[in-house]
């Protein structure tokens, strides 16, 4: 009996020690795992995925709805001629819908904090340009194919009626929102609306519109794209200090 008690006690003691050691080892393993995970190189793909998740899809839906609505109203309410003239206004509105989601840090005063993080504002803006660029390219491509069939526009007309105002509106937005001194989404929207008015005046007046030769339109488009690239590069370069 005595031997059995001693054996039982020994067995119990070593069992307790084993339990404690096991628990200790488990905790150390967990801490080591998390330490190594923290040291892992951050994944840009995961960052891009998170940007996609946190982007407000409603603005993309609005953009698609805007283009779809235009196509629906063309022929029903708008004549073909009026629809062609309204393409510039449509292009500006399309660009304006990018602003709320693209520059949400500004309205929420998060710029200062986010510029100190590993993926800083520069990477955030670049990621959003990739995401918006991809999505907008797809819906614009579909829109252009349908529009071409609906209004029987050739490439030159698509460029001069839609893409040039699209590029100019984009330049206005990136110029204003990439500026350290006049960085204001409402200003960007106001200037785009003002541009809409000017563009409408040009396209509504056939004499003015027809007097602008084809090479001039192409030059305007090329200059617009070049200036847009410069604005975007400038924004990315100075993104982390624009709010300072």
């Amino acid at each position, binding site marked *: 009996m005595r031997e059995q008690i001693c054996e039982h006690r020994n067995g119990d003691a070593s069992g307790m020690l084993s339990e404690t050691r096991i628990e200790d080892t488990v905790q150390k393993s967990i801490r080591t795992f998390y330490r190594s*995970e923290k040291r892992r190189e951050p994944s840009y793909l995961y960052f891009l995925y*998170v940007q996609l998740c946190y982007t407000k899809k409603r603005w993309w839906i609005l953009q698609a709805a805007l283009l779809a609505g235009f196509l629906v109203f063309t022929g029903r309410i708008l004549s073909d001629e009026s629809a062609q003239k309204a393409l510039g206004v449509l292009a500006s509105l399309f660009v304006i819908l990018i602003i709320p989601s693209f520059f949400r840090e500004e309205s929420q*005063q998060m710029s*200062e904090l986010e510029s100190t993080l590993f*993926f*800083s504002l520069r990477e955030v803006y670049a990621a959003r340009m990739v995401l918006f660029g991809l999505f907008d390219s797809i819906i614009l491509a579909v829109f252009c194919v349908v529009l071409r069939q609906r209004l029987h526009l050739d490439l030159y007309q698509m460029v001069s009626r839609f893409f040039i105002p699209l590029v100019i509106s984009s330049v206005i937005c990136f110029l204003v929102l990439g500026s350290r001194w006049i960085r204001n989404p409402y200003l960007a929207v106001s200037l785009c609306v003002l541009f809409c008015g000017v563009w409408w005046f040009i396209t509504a007046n056939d004499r003015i519109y027809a007097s602008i030769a084809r090479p001039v339109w192409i030059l305007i488009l090329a200059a617009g794209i070049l200036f847009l690239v410069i604005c975007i590069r400038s924004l990315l370069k100075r993104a982390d200090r624009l709010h300072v």
Partner: protein
Amino acid sequence: MELTLNHISKRYRQDIVFSDVSASLGTGLCALIGENGSGKSTLMKMIAGILFPDNGRVCFDGKDIRELGSLYRRRIGYLPQTMGLYPDMTVEQYLFYIASLKGLRPIVAREDMRQIMEDIWDPEILKEGMSELSGGQQKLVGIVQARLGDPDILLLDEAMAELDRDRMFTVLKSLRAYADSHLVILSSHLTEDIVPLADMVLKTGHGGLAYEKRNVWGV
């Protein structure tokens, strides 16, 4: 680990904020004190890499933080004096978003959140919407996001503002423990609460920076 300020000068138009100031900070709790407008936030921003000094350098382990770039940003946690928030997010979503910008994987972020929340707050608050939080609660969220990823340098600008005294002492206790193996720079006007816990005190004012190393007793 060493953070050094090498002959820093900074001015805003005609106002000289800092004139050729230097300091060297290591592990521990550093209280950053000074009158309103004396340059506490400016100094925080220069250490965080948001502002650059007109002259001089901020160095981390001997290297200019401008050259280190994202490598340095990975090792700091920053809470600005005025912190925005995304009102459409819950606390958990917000913290996960910040964690993703810090390059943290979700599994690490979740564990960090749990530990920090248990330390200074209540994990149940993770489900609340950011817009429903009071000013003090938003400040606590700010402290939690700054600590995500276990940064070597924690920069907290007026972190104690809007906190009730019980919560403030809970946070201070946690930061004191954190400072045993990290550098925590805490700016506050509540000098009587923070200075006794600090290993170092930096005082801003009149273009200068006074540095004092202290012995911490009974903590």
